[in-house]
């Protein structure tokens, strides 16, 4: 909590005020997903928060026990619908690990490219949501405009805008299409210039920045213990990114930086958590360029998919991946048949939403949308 709030809160303690529970109900324009947040407020400051999730619970994990391994891939897309490519990638990675196979190099680089396009597009959706939350609808329009160019890339690669169904167990569905390298490099070049318009709109606006600076401090200890992962944790001083520290699928062959703030002070506010995602978008552009070069070096006829057995040997494995929202894990317990025995999904937002109590304590009620926007919620993966 910022020091400037302490005298106000102390004054409120002396006045005999009553606390009230306000319900940010399931239908709310700023809740970005179907969940309820019960806030206990004392005057204007929040003293407690109680998130209620489960409005989108389908029993996803139980439904996978009834489908073949290959048929689960479209289901994984619909877990986190903003960033569907990373979840299907994670699922394919987990099954490949359980089968003990190594996929071709080209498939790994194509998956990296697809993942980073997904990351940029997901962060742009987040930025659009942040803009709407703060009341700045121009940011919404401009971010969505940029996002459309990346969705076009998805269409060129695999035909679908959002729930792409592109990675396969053993590689990817199809090779990169004609002139895909030209299109993706053009899009990335254009994006790097156009993004600055949006950044100036936000950073040069003292209203926007003051709504995020010095609000809702979280320490490194809290982030690590509460399980808050992703860009939000890197804004508070935890220097960890699965792509760099626990690499998968050739990320160790790509040279990129991981933006981390507050490594020394070990305390981060809302503005820091916001800044990390902006930086990540630029780093993703870098990664895309390097990966595209490597795909070009491998040549047109390099394999992009291998045949895999349909039955997975018994045992337990798990795969781990850096989702745009945090750390996602899929834990597979197999029993030798062609259907999983138990497939558990660890969704980053599930734990991030449970931290909303620590994030909202001591924050003015008008700042709650700004604070919660930094988690970048996608409730489909929370409730599964």
């Amino acid at each position, binding site marked *: 909590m910022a020091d400037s709030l302490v005298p106000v809160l102390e004054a409120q303690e002396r006045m005999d005020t009553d606390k009230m529970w306000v319900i940010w109900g399931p*239908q709310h324009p700023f809740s970005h997903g179907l969940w309820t947040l019960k806030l206990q407020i004392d005057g204007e400051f929040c003293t407690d928060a109680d998130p209620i999730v*489960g409005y989108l619970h389908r029993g996803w994990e139980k*439904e996978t026990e009834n489908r073949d391994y290959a048929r689960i891939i479209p289901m994984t897309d619909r877990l986190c*619908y903003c960033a569907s490519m990373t979840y299907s990638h994670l699922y394919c990675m987990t099954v490949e690990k359980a089968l003990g196979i190594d996929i071709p190099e080209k498939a790994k680089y194509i998956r990296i490219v697809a993942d980073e396009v997904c990351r940029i597009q997901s962060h742009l959706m987040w930025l659009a949501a942040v803009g709407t939350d703060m009341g700045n609808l121009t940011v919404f329009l401009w971010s969505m405009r940029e996002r459309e160019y990346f969705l076009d890339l998805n269409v060129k690669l695999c035909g679908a805008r959002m729930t792409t169904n592109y990675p396969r167990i053993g590689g990817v569905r199809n090779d990169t299409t004609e002139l895909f390298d030209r299109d993706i490099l053009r899009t990335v070049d254009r994006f790097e210039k156009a993004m600055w318009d949006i950044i100036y709109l936000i950073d040069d606006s003292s209203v926007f920045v003051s709504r995020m600076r010095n609000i809702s401090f979280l320490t490194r200890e809290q982030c690590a213990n509460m399980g808050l992962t992703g860009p939000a944790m890197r804004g508070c001083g935890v220097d960890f990114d699965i792509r760099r520290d626990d690499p998968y699928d050739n990320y160790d062959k790509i040279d990129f930086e991981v933006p981390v703030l507050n490594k020394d002070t070990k305390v981060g506010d809302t503005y820091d958590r916001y800044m990390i995602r902006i930086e990540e978008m630029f780093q993703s552009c870098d990664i895309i360029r390097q990966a595209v070069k490597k795909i070009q070096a491998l040549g047109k006829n390099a394999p992009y998919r291998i045949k895999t057995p349909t039955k997975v040997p018994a045992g337990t494995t798990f795969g781990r991946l850096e989702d745009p929202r945090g750390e996602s894990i899929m834990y597979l317990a197999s029993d030798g048949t062609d259907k999983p025995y138990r497939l558990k999904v660890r969704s980053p937002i599930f734990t991030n939403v449970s931290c909303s109590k620590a994030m909202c304590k001591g924050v003015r009620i008008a700042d709650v949308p700004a604070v919660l926007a930094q988690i970048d919620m996608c409730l489909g993966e929370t409730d599964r």
Partner: protein
Amino acid sequence: MDMSLYPHAVAMSADEFMTWSDAIINDLLSTGTKKTVDKLTGPIWAWGMKNSMHPLHWGLACCALEMAAASAPRYDAERYGMIYRSSPRQTDILLVNGWISKKIRPDLRRLYEMIPNPKWVVAMGECAISGGPWYDSYNCIQGLDQIVPVDVYIPGCPARPDAMIDGFMLLQKKIEDYFRRGNFMED
């Protein structure tokens, strides 16, 4: 039709006002005046309502992102007059764009009932039409029409923004048809 009592309407009690206005309406209905008025004003209502469809600002799941993309620059739904309203009291259309779990079912029904008449319901995406990929879920309702009457079904998984706008153009035709029939708000 005792319109001479009109200046005294402000001084009437609630019961007196109800009996007086009921008498006027019954008069209009029996002489067919309401029907004529409706037929004359029908096209005006049609033009007004179909060009200002106001859906509820409510996103459930994947199709909600395509709903957001539909109001984004490339597919601009706002040229059809579609502005999302936050409060159900200020909307015409309940747009359901995701799977319906048993937990949200009472809230969804309550939202539907809070929208004032005339209202329309649009089921967007496979999940709202029939449960979609979650056909064996213990927590998903197999279709929106099990809870509320649906007017337009927009297929797709997710429904592309162009498909959503096409669905709304179909809804425009339905709205126009409803008002031009000249027989509405019979309550």
